[in-house]
């Protein structure tokens, strides 16, 4: 039973355009959502997060949108840069233990 799903294994966009990565979840008790970015042979690094009481959080080129009624969140990267090419994981926090449940990841390729 996958509680956090990223249905697109890969995404390819042109440099300068918008990248939109999507994530769906099933558990309405999740209280925090995070995006992590992972380069090959490295551990995931925190990118941006959003509390379940908000619907948008912005940090520079990165914006996360949360639609609680649809149990859907998305990460927008504008403008996309070749250095953004990586695997992006969506994660949801369940309860007060800090346990994160991850999606399968989406590989983003930004072409020059």
């Amino acid at each position: 039973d996958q509680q956090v799903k990223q249905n697109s294994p890969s995404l390819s966009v042109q440099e300068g355009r918008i990248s939109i990565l999507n994530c769906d979840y099933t558990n309405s008790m999740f209280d925090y959502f995070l995006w992590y970015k992972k380069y090959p042979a490295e551990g995931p690094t925190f990118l941006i997060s959003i509390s379940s009481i908000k619907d948008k959080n912005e940090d520079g080129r990165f914006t996360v949108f949360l639609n609680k009624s649809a149990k859907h969140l998305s990460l927008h990267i504008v403008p996309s840069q070749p250095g953004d090419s990586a695997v992006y994981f969506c994660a949801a926090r369940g309860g007060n233990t800090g346990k994160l449940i991850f999606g399968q990841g989406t590989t983003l390729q930004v072409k020059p």
Partner: protein
Amino acid sequence: EAGVAQSPRYKIIEKRQSVAFWCNPISGHATLYWYQQILGQGPKLLIQFQNNGVVDDSQLPKDRFSAERLKGVDSTLKIQPAKLEDSAVYLCASSRQPSGNTIYFGEGSWLTVV
């Protein structure tokens, strides 16, 4: 500030052998996590420590996996005996508190079981 340190980075063993991974979390981080990431999947929590106590080990295959954090700092994850399906990256992570909004990951220990 130093990040989460893990060793070894890479390990190849035969099935039924044993292996141990070591993790040193970020200084001052009381919560330590071990995640397993199989190729093509997202990381899955194996065990979570708060200081030297176990908070969550519900997904740890206890017949072959064990972990300890004796002094509330470093941690060791052991697999004995290893199976082919244990081939994965083992990620150690830490956070300042259990409900921390961000968890910091190490670079991972890559295990191949042949």
